[in-house]
C-alpha cells in the first residue's frame, strides 16, 4: 500500500476507525527533515502489511496538529484502536520506525 494523505475530513475513517494500527506522519513542505523522512515512510508503507501509514500536512491541517499537540516535526504518532500509543520526534532511522510500528 502507499501512503495515504489524510485531512480532517477523512481522519476519523482512515485513522480512528481503522482496523489496522495507523502510523501518522505529521509534516510540512518547508521542513527538511520531514522531506528526508518521506522516502523511508514510503518504503515502509510498501513493505508492511500490519500497519496503515498516513501523511498529515500540518499547514493545511492545523486543527489536527493542535488536537494532537504536535509542536515539533517530523512527528510520527502510532494510533491503535483510535488511541495514540507511541510517538517519536525528529528524523529517525528506519529500524527505529519499525520498532515503533512493532509486530
Amino acid at each position, binding site marked *: 500500500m502507499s501512503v495515504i494523505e489524510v485531512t480532517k475530513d477523512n481522519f476519523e475513517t482512515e485513522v480512528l476507525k481503522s482496523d489496522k494500527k495507523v502510523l501518522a506522519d505529521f509534516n510540512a513542505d*518547508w521542513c527538511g527533515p520531514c522531506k*528526508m523522512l518521506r522516502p523511508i515512510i514510503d518504503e515502509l508503507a510498501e513493505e508492511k502489511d500490519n500497519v496503515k501509514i498516513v501523511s498529515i500536512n500540518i499547514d493545511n491541517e492545523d486543527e489536527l496538529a493542535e488536537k494532537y499537540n504536535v509542536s515539533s516535526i517530523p512527528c510520527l504518532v502510532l494510533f491503535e484502536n483510535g488511541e495514540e500509543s507511541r510517538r517519536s520526534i525528529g528524523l529517525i532511522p528506519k529500524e527505529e520506525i519499525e520498532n515503533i510500528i512493532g509486530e
Partner: protein
Amino acid sequence: MYDIIIVGAGPAGLTAAIYARRAQKSVLVLEAKSYGGQIINTLDIENYPVEEHISGFDFATKLYKQTKALGAEIVFEKVVDINDLGNTKEVVTTKNKYSCKAVIIATGSEDRKLGLSNEDELVGKGISYCATCDGAFYKGKTVAVVGGGNTALEDALYLSDIASKVYLIHRRDEFRAEETTVEQLKKKENVEFIYNSTVTKLNASERLESIEVTNKDGSVRTIEVNGLFVAVGRIPENQNFAKLIELDNAGYVKAGEDCKTTCKGIFTAGDNRIKEVRQLVTATGDGAVAATNAVKYINNL
C-alpha cells in the same frame, strides 16, 4: 569485498564517494538515518560557492543523486564497530558485516543538549533543536533561543518574524557569529538579548512553561516562554571508533589536513575531525582529500 567503505552520507561522506568512484574504486556508503547530514535542517544556504541560494534539502538531494549516478552503493544501516584486520577492515552495522580495504569515517556531529534533567521529555513539548522545522508552531508566541554561534543567531532572526517575542540567551557578552547576522538581529525590536547567562531549569507541567536563567553574577530570573530553541553547538559521535583511532578530549578525530587517522587505512572527513571551520566547503574539501589518500593507500597495498 569493497575497496572503500564510507561511514556517513553527509556532505563529507558523499563527496568522498564521488572522488573514490571517479578513481574507479568500489564504494559502499553506510548511513544511519537518511542522506544529507545536518545540512537538511537549513532552509537557505548562501555561502556555498556557485549557488547563491539553495535549500539544505535540495543541496543534499543533488549531492545524493550525483553520488548514485557515479555508481556508489548507499545502504541505510548504522555502523557500530570497525575491526582492523591489517590489510582488510571489517565494518559492523546493526544488521551486517562488510569487508573493505580502507574506511573513511565521516560521521559529522549531533546537536549538543543543555544537559538539564527533564530536557529529553520536553522535546516536542516546547524544546526544539531545529528552528526551521518547528518555528511555525510559535506564531505570535514567546520563545527563547539559547546559544551564541551562527545557528543560534540565525534561529533568533528566523523566529523574530514568526514569534511575538524572542529572547536570545548567551553565556558570554560577545557572539561567535557572522557580523551581518548580528547586525540584522540587533535591528529587530522584538528580540531581547540576555548576556552572560545560562538556562538552568526548565519549568513544565504538560508543556514547557518557563525557564530559569542564571546570570554569571548569580542573579536568577524566571522567564515565561512557550518554546525554547537550543543551539549550543554540536558534538562529534566518534565513540564507537575510539578503540581504533585517537580522539581529542572533545571527541574529535585526531587527523590533520591529510585526513589520516592514527590507524593505517582508516581516514576521516568532515565535521568530526579536529579543525577550525566546520562548514560545507570544508566538509566537501575533506571528502576529496580523504578519498584521494584512501585510493593511494589501496594502490600501495
